């Protein structure tokens, strides 16, 4: 292959051949690295889920004849299907989860779910001409799977967003979103820890309810304004 053609004499020629050879082997290395990271039998299902979701979101965002509220609520109901909010609530509360009774847990999951779905929906709705490249997947500890995506185009061109999925009750659901190395679960956990350091779980629930209420109100206002 390349090395045979590199028998030709002359310094420039040899230098060019060497460069081509280096580039070639580097691309081989990166291809094999990509193959090693992606074990298709184990990651196919979660990867497909992320792929389908990305396609759905792009098509929702393309519905420019609808109002912003309609698009956001469509993204919200999509989020309801693909996130495992109970697991996410456990992870963000960590040890505090154990201290809560069932009623409190349920209340927390319901409010946290609304909070996440709304912030997720509102943010996504601003992103327009962007494409999502689902470029890889990786098996993690205890058979979680990370699906790796990259934003193409727009203001966040090249941003890495990785989704961690867990299979429970035979369903793959997202349990964390990692943007440029920043885990959403870790970020909420550190904030909630701070709130719980200075207050009780009641206080945290009250803050969550307040935030959700404000979002509701703001939305009702802007809906009234468009009508």
């Amino acid at each position, binding site marked *: 292959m390349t090395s045979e053609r590199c028998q030709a004499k002359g310094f420039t020629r040899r230098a060019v051949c060497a460069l081509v050879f280096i580039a070639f082997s*580097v691309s081989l290395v990166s291809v094999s690295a990509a193959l090693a990271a992606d074990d298709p039998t184990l990651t196919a299902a979660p990867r497909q889920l992320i792929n389908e979701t990305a396609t759905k979101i792009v098509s929702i965002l393309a519905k420019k004849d609808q109002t912003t509220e309609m698009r956001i609520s469509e993204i919200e109901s999509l989020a*309801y299907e693909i996130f*495992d*909010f*109970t697991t996410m*609530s*456990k*992870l963000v509360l*960590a*040890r505090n*989860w*154990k201290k809560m009774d*069932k009623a409190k*847990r*349920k209340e927390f*999951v*319901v409010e946290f*779910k609304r*909070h996440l779905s709304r*912030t997720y929906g*509102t*943010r996504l709705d*601003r992103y327009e001409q962007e494409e999502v490249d689902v470029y*890889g997947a*990786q098996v*993690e*500890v*205890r058979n*979680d799977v*990370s699906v*790796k995506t990259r934003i193409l185009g727009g*203001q966040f*061109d*090249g941003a*890495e967003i*990785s989704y*961690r999925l867990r299979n*429970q*009750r035979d369903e793959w659901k997202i*349990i*964390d979103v*990692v943007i*440029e*190395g*920043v*885990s959403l*679960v*870790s*970020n*909420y*956990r*550190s*904030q*909630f820890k*701070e*709130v719980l350091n200075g207050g009780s779980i009641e206080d*945290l629930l009250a*803050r969550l309810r307040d*935030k959700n209420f404000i979002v509701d109100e703001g939305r009702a206002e802007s809906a009234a304004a468009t009508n």
Partner: protein
Amino acid sequence: MTISPTHALADESDVSDRAVSPREPSNPDPLEKINRGTFAFNEGLDKYFLSPLATAWDFVVPEFAQTGINNFYGHLNMPIVLANDILQGKPMAALQDVTRILHNTVFGLGGFIDFATIVGIPENDEDFGQTLGVYGVPPGPYLMVPILGPYTLRDGVGEVVDTTASGFLYAPFWYQVAGLSPIETSGASVGQKGLELLNLRSIYDEELEESKKDAFDYYIFVRNAYLQNRRAKVADQTDAPVLDEEDLYFFDEEENGDEADDDEEENYDDF
């Protein structure tokens, strides 16, 4: 979920495999009190000065020009990135960045268009703080710097080194081509930095406002995001978190084995 002891062992080894050049100190923010004060000052500055200025900038400068300016600043910074590629012993990244500089200079109107990205040359994000991290220097305490925002001690030192190097690199331009005196040259460098920050602030205006609104503790939000992001960058692994909490995805379920079965059935998603 069934959790066997072997699983738990496997997890721990895996987590330590993944991580982390230097381990975080147990408290990354020993100066929290002072930092919170500076943070409040920066927030005030942003609210009454930067944010209105950014709104005005946004009004006057069209979006494509903002992107172009941002690209140009990225382009000006490429020699620094290249130097850090080399210092970190990353020849492939260095090659890519040389190609990137050439492409964007020649085909990208001197750096205003990121032509290299369009043709698929990846962008490397390196700085001297990361270089120090690669050589094992721990991040040190978290520092909130007036006007400039979050740093760790290591990354602040890195920023000073990068900025100084960049200043020396472009000083001949201001000094000889534009004919400024040394004092005017340093003034021009400050202006250059100021414009960069203003343009960035205006590009990310909506994200900043929304993050502020959504946060439960905005100071913690920023600190956590900054530290996670820097850790990921040092490890060149921005597609996954570099865990500092080993229990991030599996908290103390093992301790309460009897309750774990109970949790298995626990699912409140349908409410």
